[in-house]
């Protein structure tokens, strides 16, 4: 099988529009900023026709050149995609590694009779290869033989259904951050019913005075305590609306949840009208995250988040999430999916690592701080109330430090024969359990000058996206590939 193609002529239009929309390679935005700073804008305005012709010709020329660079090649052993002009992309993919093929159509595809093909491999957050704006015939010749369908199996051996109290516990145990989005949508929907005079957000934005109000906010004096009060009020508001979302969104979502585990698959359906169903192959399951916070201990159970070697990491309620599993059922579930229930090491003070992590976070925010400092008027630095601002910033920084401390305190790592248990830097004490054979790599941050002291680690496991900073049991030696291969 040998096939080679580029983009069809019809693909020029969507490429041009994508080009204009995405500020490709960041060039245009940079040029506009430089032009604005150098004061070129008035000159361009004075010669508008010539400017438009020149800029239009450049964009058209660039688009045609870009269009010509798209090249897709397929043979028996490999798929090659070449794109890009200023920044060249060359992707080579073996068809045996493809786990999912998506064919999508946006409005341009519908209009022009084209299709966008996305090839997903295991583990890649985005599509490994995106073949945009080709004809269906080209798509068929390129990837027609690659669609993968899971086999169906309906023999269920382990099953449990959540009672109403368990569903309520599940709704209470959803992290606040997963509730904020639905909560805001609920508030936006409910607002016109609660107050007939209240303006909708889109009406507020379209209001003629909104721009003036926004500019007034930027230029008005911020008194000491204002920023702290805004942060506090925002926090209280979000917690309040997340409580509403737990009742009106999470609970209906979790009522009647039923879990079926067979020899090959795990299936979950949840919601009063079976709002959501998902299933995954047990062989695809790579890690399982269990919460161990105060509430989980009080309720004698925990939410469970399953992670696969799938194409995209799925976290929180949108992922493979079982809202509440009692401790007994959890043991049974772990046995069924053949993952050992590992324990994290005891929490110990690891002050140096915590301070270094804080230094890293502080350094990461330096650019924003410098930006704010440069933005402030010169007179601000002579102001008599400067110490009050400093005190407020100090308090906010202290709060942020305590938040980071909590995350650091909950982290930990233990590698034992055949198993790995990870406590990621999170607000709650969560355990991610996995088999060692699913570990595909490791990232270790050390200080060579301090006898290779381990600052932080990050195991290469699905679902592990945070560093572990409490590294009491870690040395570079026992985390090296050569050592782990002996376990």
């Amino acid at each position, binding site marked *: 099988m040998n096939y080679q193609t580029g983009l069809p002529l019809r693909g020029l239009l969507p490429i041009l529009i994508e080009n204009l929309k995405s500020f490709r390679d960041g060039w245009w935005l940079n040029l506009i*900023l*430089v032009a604005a*700073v150098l004061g070129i804008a008035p000159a361009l305005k004075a010669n508008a026709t010539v400017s438009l012709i020149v800029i239009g010709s450049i964009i058209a020329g660039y688009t045609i050149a870009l269009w010509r660079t798209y090249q897709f090649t397929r043979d*028996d*052993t*490999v798929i090659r995609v070449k794109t890009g002009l*200023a*920044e*060249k*992309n*060359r*992707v*080579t*993919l*073996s068809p*045996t*590694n493809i786990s999912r093929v998506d064919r999508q159509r946006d409005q341009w595809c519908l209009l022009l009779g084209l299709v966008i093909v996305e090839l997903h*491999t295991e*583990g*890649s*957050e985005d599509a*490994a290869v995106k073949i945009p704006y080709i004809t269906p015939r080209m798509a068929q010749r390129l990837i027609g033989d690659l669609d993968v369908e899971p086999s169906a199996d309906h023999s269920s051996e382990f099953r449990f259904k959540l009672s109403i109290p368990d569903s309520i516990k599940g709704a209470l145990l959803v992290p606040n951050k997963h509730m904020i989005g639905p909560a805001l949508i609920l508030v936006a929907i409910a607002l016109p019913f609660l107050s007939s005079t209240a303006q909708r957000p889109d009406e507020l934005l379209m209001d003629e005075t909104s721009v003036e109000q926004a500019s007034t906010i930027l*230029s008005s004096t911020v008194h000491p305590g204002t920023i702290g009060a805004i942060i506090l009020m925002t926090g209280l508001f979000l917690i309040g609306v997340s409580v509403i979302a737990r009742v009106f969104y999470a609970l209906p979502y979790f009522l009647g949840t039923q879990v079926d585990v067979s020899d090959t698959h795990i299936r979950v359906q949840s919601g009063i009208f079976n709002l959501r169903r998902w299933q995954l192959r047990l062989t695809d399951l790579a890690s399982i995250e269990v919460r161990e916070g105060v509430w989980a201990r009080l309720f004698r159970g925990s939410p469970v988040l399953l992670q696969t*070697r*799938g*194409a995209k*990491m799925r976290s929180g309620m949108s992922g493979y999430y079982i809202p509440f599993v009692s401790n007994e059922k959890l043991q049974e579930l772990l046995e069924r999916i053949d993952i050992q229930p590992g324990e994290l090491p005891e929490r110990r003070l690891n002050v140096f690592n915590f301070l270094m992590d804080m230094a890293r976070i502080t350094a990461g925010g330096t*650019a924003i701080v*410098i*930006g704010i400092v*440069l*933005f*402030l*008027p*010169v007179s601000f*630095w002579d102001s008599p109330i400067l110490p009050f601002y400093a005190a407020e910033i100090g308090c906010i920084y202290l709060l942020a430090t305590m938040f980071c401390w909590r995350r650091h305190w909950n982290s930990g790592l233990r590698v034992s024969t055949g198993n790995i248990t990870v406590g990621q830097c999170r607000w709650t004490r969560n355990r991610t359990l996995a088999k*060692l*054979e699913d570990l*595909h*790599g*490791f*990232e*270790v*941050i*050390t*200080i*060579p000058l301090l006898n290779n002291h381990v600052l932080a680690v*990050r*195991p*290469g*496991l*699905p*679902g*592990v*996206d945070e560093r572990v900073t409490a590294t009491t049991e870690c040395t570079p030696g026992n985390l*090296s*590939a*050569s050592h782990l*291969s002996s*376990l």
Partner: protein
Amino acid sequence: MVFNRSAYTINTTLKWLMTGVMLFLGVVLLAPPESLARQLLITLQGYPVYSVMVVLFTVTLFALLSWVRACTLQFSMTDGYIEFRVGTVVQKYQWILRRDIRNIRLKANIIEQKLNAATLEIETVGTGGVDIQLPQLRRHEAEAIRKQLLPEETTAANDPEPNPDPAKSPLSQADAQDVRTMQ
């Protein structure tokens, strides 16, 4: 030497400079006339020689730091895994299993193209975990590594059963044969 240090130094220096310049330009555009940024700009216009010296000092400092970092780049490859190290004061060490590699991207921006370098991005099966990016490799080395890491491209047609024992632990395949260590 598998890494192109010149390309790494220029690329990293420009990346840091661009971040700084974009931040400064953004603030200057948005900040009110009495802001520190605007006042600083006015002051610098009064002392062009000092301004040029400040800019040159910044560029030299960034270039020097980038070069020191470039000297710490290390990459090694065995039959079982790939290792990558970078950093002097704080060192980052990464390893990934070769059998878990699913996708390899070869990228080259304008600077890399001119200096005959390329960046290799290696994606593994894990999500949100450890993927390795080998920055500014020499072009031919990047191609050679890519071909070594994707054997399916050349051997899959002749090897219908690439993994005869899937139950075997992947880490047990990490026997250190044919170790290549490169800087």
